[in-house]
């Protein structure tokens, strides 16, 4: 089994297959804690974690907070409205001020891609964990998605995974593409041509499909993405109804996938746009399982960065 040597987790692109396997295996062990009456272990006692969220978040921030608390760390949350960024403070100044309070880990979400690499350069003695940066990566979501697939199929190697929707603006898609292709899955992308980045095929074992039907055909996993209204101009799609007609998942086009295919979505869901409610609440949906696995995966990430080396 590989050792985890990173001080920071910023992108799955930076991790090897063995390191991803180690994180997933640790998360599987962490799950046992979440099923106990006393959901707490003393592992990170005395450590301070700052959840620095420059963008709104319910799932990810709560999940990281619960993960830290279950490992006995002290967690502090900074949300967009409570951040001095609203008063014009730069990220570098915020970082240096936070560092003066001696945190051990900063979990950050930021709208600017690559801001975590900038932050890690400013804070060499503190671990940085990426909770989403712009349209770059969302490694914890990628890991929890992989764990949920592994739970269902017992493997990632050889799975056909269809990722449908706004690929260009999706950090979830990027992390999943990086992680899944390293683990041996085949990734098929489909979305409106305005929402699929040129050159996506070059990412590895990735096939860009002309239609959603082609991507979903015989898929083991159908992963739907949220329409990122906040990140795109108004010109990328005519309207939600038309998008839903061509790239929405409903019981009819889900039949094209394998009969035991799992349906995933990183949330929050625009019901009736990316997916019909029949599918969201249907038997093939693993959306709540993804949320459940999020806590275990984030516990694994926090645990391993504490043992990492300065890079």
């Amino acid at each position, binding site marked *: 089994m590989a*050792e*985890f040597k990173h001080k920071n987790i910023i992108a799955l692109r930076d991790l090897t297959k063995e390191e991803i396997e180690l994180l997933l295996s640790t998360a599987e*062990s962490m799950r*046992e804690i979440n099923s106990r009456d*006393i959901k707490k272990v*003393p*592992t990170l*006692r005395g450590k301070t974690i700052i959840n620095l969220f420059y963008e709104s978040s319910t799932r990810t921030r709560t999940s990281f907070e619960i993960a830290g608390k279950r490992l006995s760390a002290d967690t502090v949350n900074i949300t967009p409205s409570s951040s001095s960024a609203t008063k014009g403070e730069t990220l570098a100044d915020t970082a240096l001020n936070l560092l003066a309070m001696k945190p051990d880990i900063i979990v950050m979400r930021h709208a600017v891609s690559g801001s975590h690499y900038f932050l890690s350069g400013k804070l060499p003695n503190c671990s940085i964990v990426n909770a989403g940066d712009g349209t770059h990566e969302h490694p914890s979501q990628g890991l929890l998605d992989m764990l949920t697939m592994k739970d269902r199929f017992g493997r990632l190697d050889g799975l056909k995974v269809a990722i449908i929707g706004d690929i260009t603006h999706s950090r979830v898609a990027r992390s999943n593409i990086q992680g899944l292709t390293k683990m041996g899955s085949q990734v098929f992308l489909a979305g409106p041509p305005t929402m699929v980045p040129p050159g996506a095929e070059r990412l590895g074992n990735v096939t860009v499909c002309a239609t959603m039907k082609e991507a979903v055909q015989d898929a083991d996993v159908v992963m739907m993405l949220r329409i990122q209204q906040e990140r795109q101009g108004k010109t990328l799609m005519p309207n939600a109804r038309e998008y839903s007609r061509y790239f929405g998942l409903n019981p009819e086009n889900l039949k094209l996938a394998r009969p035991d295919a799992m349906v995933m979505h990183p949330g929050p869901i625009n019901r009736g746009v990316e997916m019909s409610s029949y599918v969201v609440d249907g038997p093939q949906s693993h959306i709540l399982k993804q949320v459940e696995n999020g806590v275990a995966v984030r516990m694994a990430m926090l645990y391993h960065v*504490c*043992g990492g080396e300065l890079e």
Partner: protein
Amino acid sequence: MTDEMTVILDGPGIKRALTRISHEILERNKGLTDVVLVGIRSGGDFLASQIGAALEVIEGDKAPVGAVDITLYRDDVSNQLPHHPVGKTEIPFSLEGKKVVLVDDVLFTGRTIRAAMDALMDHGRPQCIQLAVLIDRGHRELPIRADFVGRNVPTSLKENVQVIFDDRNQPVRVVLEK
């Protein structure tokens, strides 16, 4: 095996020690009522299974067997670079009111046992915890003593004691490395 290794116990010797420990567990607890076995990963869990099988042969009754991984309870986890992989804790029964026999392969400083007791307490409140070890090599750093010992082996701090298991997790020998 190098010249620096001495075999302390061979396969049959380990089996005899575990059989004696099993008899002592039965004697101490007057049977198997409310007795459960929990082995410490990794090594103690394999030995707990062996003791469980021996108890069944002797008493004709089964004691539940579980395994605890203590990685997350170690007192040096914050200082270690890089971290150990975390194993699975599998205790598929309630510990509430049970007589837990904690099983480990080698008893050394006592810190692993302390961590294991913390882990067990987070799973419930046992009636009591008893400790069974195959080898006690001394050098305790905490006030912990085993209830059932396969073999006491006085060692120096420079030496290492290892229980070797085969690929079927059967203990095949105990070696002292100098």
